[in-house]
Every structure is written in structure tokens, then in C-alpha cells.
């Protein structure tokens, strides 16, 4: 116990030392910059995130340069002028301005005439804050500890249960033995078992039992055989391992990106489309790593970051220089949903014309960490939906005339897809 206490106090002292050191370094820092010239980093963060972060990161190169350390490199008045209108400075022939413009592929910086001196001071105060140390190690340890704890506790419970059961068995045997001994001692005669006919012989001689059990057996057999035959060619639950672990849960679920953002051709064509990697890069140009809170017990932050690195490798994107190398390696995704060749299916008819939710056929994709086939995609499954679903008429003049005629014919107000001809063989098989 004492040892632990000592260690505890040592770590406490270390922590205190660190805190003191940090506060001193911060003090030194603000003194270096003249203190009053820099503004409020909290306000600066807000401004930075809304105005600058599209092209700048504090500690890494993005479209524009990393901004940490900029106040040491440039004069504050130069920065005011540059931020408010960099194009003017370049036109006026400022050597520094031209140099930076050329270094960053002649990409002009948007002018920000609306920012006041104080606003710019706040932003600079924010970017000049020392880079925060990632609390990854501590969090990881804690998570590991929690995981181990859960494992140990279930193991203990299982062991205890096994022990109790064993104890019960032993007690039973002992009690039985003692009772038999008692019976022998007190002269009670135990009834001896007669040699009976074996059970299977009795069963075989009883014709009714044989008949009924074989009928049951046949029925059960037929049931299983039918079930077995019906699942041939059905891939419900198919969940292949993809070359890049893409989590629909993070993208469609947590971030709420529309399905059609990536599967854009589902709106207008037969196939829903596997997005080409440029669509991934629309966001992942700026999202090069996941946030620490994205990591789960099963998948760590390192794992997810590794998946983004795979995307960068496939597209030839170099995040340090923010440019494409031109060396591309196509990703061989594994197709999950695949209808047999003899069935025709068109996404745009269902998505755009009928306005069916993607989840109706694909299930709760926004909750799937690994995508799986949710529906059986059998003909019976298609037919069932066509029988139940009404034709969507809103904003669709195309169906107006036929709908009016057919609804009169069937004497209904709203036609189902089936009544509109969606059960005709030739609609899907030709």
C-alpha cells in the first residue's frame, strides 16, 4: 500500500511541475509578442473556423500555408493588408506577396475587407497558440483498461458459476451415497430393476408409433428440404470484406450525408453507382484523419486513419504537398447487391419516379458499420411491395390519364403499382 502512495505523490508532483512549466511558457510566449497586440484566441477560433479554415490549417499546409508562426515571419501591418486584399499587394509589386502567391500555385486568396484589426488580432492569437498534444495515449489506455475490466468480470462470473455447479454435483453424489448406506444399515430392501425389453424393440413392435413418427419425420424433412431449396441463389445477409473499410454508419448515419450524394446515378440511371474516388476526395481533401471521438472499441482511430491513407494511396493524393501525383490505383470494391441477369431493375424508376426511400430495400444502411444485403431480393419480395404500394402521382403528369382510366375500371381511388401493370412478366423479364 505504501508503495502505491509514494508513486501517487510523485506523479502528483510531476503534474504540478508540468502545470507550472506550461503556465510559464505561456507567459513567456505572450510577452514575446508584446502581449497587448494579440487578441482573444476563443473569438479568433470562431472567426478562423468560419472564414479561414476553408484554405488554412493552423499546423499543416492546406490550400494555403500553415499559419502557426506567421506573426514571427511577417510584420503585423503587412498581414492586415494581405488579409484584406492580397491581390492589390501582388499588383503593387510587393516582393513577399508575389513570392507567396507563386509558391502556392498562383491561387489567389479571397479578400476579407470585412475583418477589423481586432478580428485579425483574434485570429492570429488563435493560430499562434502552441499545438495541443493529442490525448490519444491516455484515452487509449483508459479504453483498454475498461475493455479488460469487462472481460475479467465476465470470466470471474463464469468461473464462479462452474464452481457452484461442480459443488452441487459433488453434494448430490455424496447425499445419494449416504442415503444408500443408511438404507443398507437399517435393513430396507432396495427394489431391484427388472430386465426390461429395450426401448427401440418396443418402439419397432408398435406399428402405430412407427407410422406416425415416420410421417412426422417426412414432413420435417420436407420442411427443411423446401427451406434449403428456397434459399439457393439468395444472398440475404451477404457481407463481404471490402478493400477499404468504408463505414456507412459514420458517413450516412453520424454525419447525415445523403445517400444520393455519393450514389448520384441512382437518381437518373439503372444502376445506383459506386462512387468514383473523386467523390470521396470532395470531403477527404480536407478530412485527412478522423476525430478521436469517432473511434469505437472495435475500431481505433489509427485503424480509421489507415483507411483514409488507403484512399490517398489509391488516388495518388499527397496530403503534405496537397497535390495529386498522378499515380492511381483503382479500388476493387466487392459488389454486394447483384440481381440475376434475367431480372431487370431500374433505380431511377424507384428512386426518382416512385420516391421510394433507399432504406425500404437496403435496410438501415446508416447504422451499418459494414454493409450487408438486407433484403432477400427475391421475386416474391418484389411482388409483395408492388401489391402494397400506391403509385406516386404528385408532380407526375405522365401517369395522369392512365391513372384516371384504370382507377375507374377497378373502382378504387388510388392504384397500387400492381394494378398499374407492375406485375406483368415483361416489365422485369425480357
Amino acid at each position, binding site marked *: 500500500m505504501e508503495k502505491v502512495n509514494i508513486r501517487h505523490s510523485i506523479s502528483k508532483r510531476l503534474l504540478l511541475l508540468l502545470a507550472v512549466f506550461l503556465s510559464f511558457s505561456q507567459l513567456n510566449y505572450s510577452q514575446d509578442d508584446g502581449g497587448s497586440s494579440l487578441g482573444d484566441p476563443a473569438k479568433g477560433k470562431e472567426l478562423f473556423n468560419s472564414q479561414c479554415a476553408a484554405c488554412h490549417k493552423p499546423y499543416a499546409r492546406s490550400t494555403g500555408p500553415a499559419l502557426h508562426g506567421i506573426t514571427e515571419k511577417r510584420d503585423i501591418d503587412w498581414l492586415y493588408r494581405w488579409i484584406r486584399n492580397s491581390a492589390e499587394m501582388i499588383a503593387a509589386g510587393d516582393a513577399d506577396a508575389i513570392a507567396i502567391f507563386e509558391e502556392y500555385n498562383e491561387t489567389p486568396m479571397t479578400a476579407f475587407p470585412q475583418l477589423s484589426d481586432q478580428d485579425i488580432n483574434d485570429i492570429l492569437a488563435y493560430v499562434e497558440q502552441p499545438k495541443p498534444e493529442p490525448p490519444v495515449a491516455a484515452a487509449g489506455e483508459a479504453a483498454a483498461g475498461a475493455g479488460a475490466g469487462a472481460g475479467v468480470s465476465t470470466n470471474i462470473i463464469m468461473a464462479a458459476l462452474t464452481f457452484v455447479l461442480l459443488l452441487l454435483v459433488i453434494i448430490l453424489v455424496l447425499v445419494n451415497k449416504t442415503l444408500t448406506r443408511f438404507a443398507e444399515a437399517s435393513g430396507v430392501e432396495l427394489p431391484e430393476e427388472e430386465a426390461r425389453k429395450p426401448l427401440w424393440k418396443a418402439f419397432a413392435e408398435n406399428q402405430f408409433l412407427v407410422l406416425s413418427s415416420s410421417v412426422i419425420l417426412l414432413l420435417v424433412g420436407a420442411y427443411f428440404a423446401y427451406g434449403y431449396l428456397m434459399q439457393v441463389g439468395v444472398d440475404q445477409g451477404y457481407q463481404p470484406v471490402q478493400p477499404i473499410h468504408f463505414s456507412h454508419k459514420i458517413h450516412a448515419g453520424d454525419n447525415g450525408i445523403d445517400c444520393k450524394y455519393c450514389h448520384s446515378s441512382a437518381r437518373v440511371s439503372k444502376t445506383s453507382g459506386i462512387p468514383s474516388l473523386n467523390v470521396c476526395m470532395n470531403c477527404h481533401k480536407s478530412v485527412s484523419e478522423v476525430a478521436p471521438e469517432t473511434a469505437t472499441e472495435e475500431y481505433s482511430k489509427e485503424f480509421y486513419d489507415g483507411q483514409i491513407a488507403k484512399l490517398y494511396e489509391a488516388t495518388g493524393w499527397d496530403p503534405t504537398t496537397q497535390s495529386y501525383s498522378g499515380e492511381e490505383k483503382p479500388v476493387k470494391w466487392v459488389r454486394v447487391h447483384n440481381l440475376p441477369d*434475367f431480372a431487370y431493375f431500374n433505380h431511377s424508376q424507384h428512386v426518382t419516379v416512385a420516391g421510394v426511400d433507399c432504406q425500404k430495400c437496403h435496410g438501415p444502411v446508416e447504422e451499418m458499420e459494414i454493409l450487408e444485403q438486407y433484403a432477400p431480393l427475391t421475386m416474391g419480395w418484389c411482388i409483395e411491395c408492388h401489391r402494397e404500394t400506391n403509385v406516386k402521382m404528385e408532380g407526375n403528369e405522365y401517369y395522369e390519364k392512365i391513372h384516371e382510366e384504370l382507377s375507374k375500371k377497378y373502382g378504387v381511388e388510388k392504384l397500387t403499382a400492381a394494378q398499374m401493370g407492375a406485375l406483368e412478366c415483361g416489365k422485369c423479364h425480357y
Partner: protein
Amino acid sequence: MGMKTIKIAVALIAATLSVGCFNKDSRNYEFFPDMYESVGYETYGEYEAFGNGQQAQIPVEGTIARGWKPYAYPNTTEGFAQAKEELKNPLPYTEDNLNKGKELYTIYCAICHGDKGDGKGNLVKREKILGIPSYDDMGRAITEGGVYHVSYYGLNTMGSYAAQTNEEERWQITHYVMDLKAQLEGKPKRAFETKASLKEQKEIISEVTVQENPVTTTH
């Protein structure tokens, strides 16, 4: 004894058949697969007939895919400035076009730019992507031509949306973006123009491109 053994055997076989076939990593087997597998090339299929083995091909250089027309302005700073200055939305400002634009905007743009165009989409709120400007940003002063140009090529961190939308759809989105800008600036709503028929609208789109681009006329 025999009956029992048979019974157990049948039960075991049934159990293995119903459980054993279920493997999440691989597809189930098919009955008469020649009716399942396509003779023609399937979307995203792998075929030796193509140079890189992929069915998904990009258009051959110098050709134009049906319904896909070249864009006159180059992806340069000058091209952007020029498009911003002179390019105008060829589609009439009708309710249909605006509604379609809103629908597409919600899918492709709102996730970053926000439903109101104020730069506060879901990804921004969750601090995944930062620095999305509001459409009424003074330094940028967006115009119809500029919006179209940027959605076609992308700009800085924003990617190109030419792969996900077609020309007509981008112009519809542009109508909606300009509408959002007017709302943010507190300007009065623009009056709708007379409705163009679907056929007329297709003609507008094709005419505009033919005039603007010499490539299409030489073909």
C-alpha cells in the same frame, strides 16, 4: 437402434445444411448460373476486353458522351473571373426549376453550405470541414456564372460536382443558390418567369452550349 441413428443423422444433416451454407463473406451458390450471369458486360464488371480490365471506362479522348457537353471556360483563375463576369443562367427562373434546384442543393451542397446557404451545414457543425463561407460573403460576391463555374470545376478545397450532376441540374442549383443569397442579404424574392415546357428547356440547354463552344460545332 437403426431408426434412432437415422433420425439423428437426418437432424444433423438438416442442421448443417441450414446453418452450414450461411457464410457472410461469400455469395450463396446458384442453380443454373448461366441464367444468372450476364452475357453482356455488367456495370462495374471485370472483363479482359478492356485495356485496364474494367467495364467502367472514361470517354475516349476527343469524344463527347451523350447528354454531356463541353464547358467553354478553362479551370484557371482567369477562366473563373471571366465566367463570373459574363456567364448567365440560361434556364428560366420558374418554380419547377427552383424546386428541383432546392432538392439537388439539399443532396449535394447543404451538407457543408447549410440549408440556408449560411455556411453552417452538418459537417461544419460537427467540425469535420471548416471555413465554409456564407453566400452573402462580401469578399467573394458570388454571381450566377461563378456558382456554375465552381460547381463544375471545384475551387480550392471544394471538389468538382461535374460527375454527380449534369448541366441542367447545375443551372437549377445555381438558381437556388442565388435565391438563398438574396434571402441572406434580405433582398425581395425574384418573380417567377413563365413556365418553360420540358422540351423547350432541353433546347435552351443545347443551344447555349453550341453557341458557346466551337468544339461541338466542328463535330
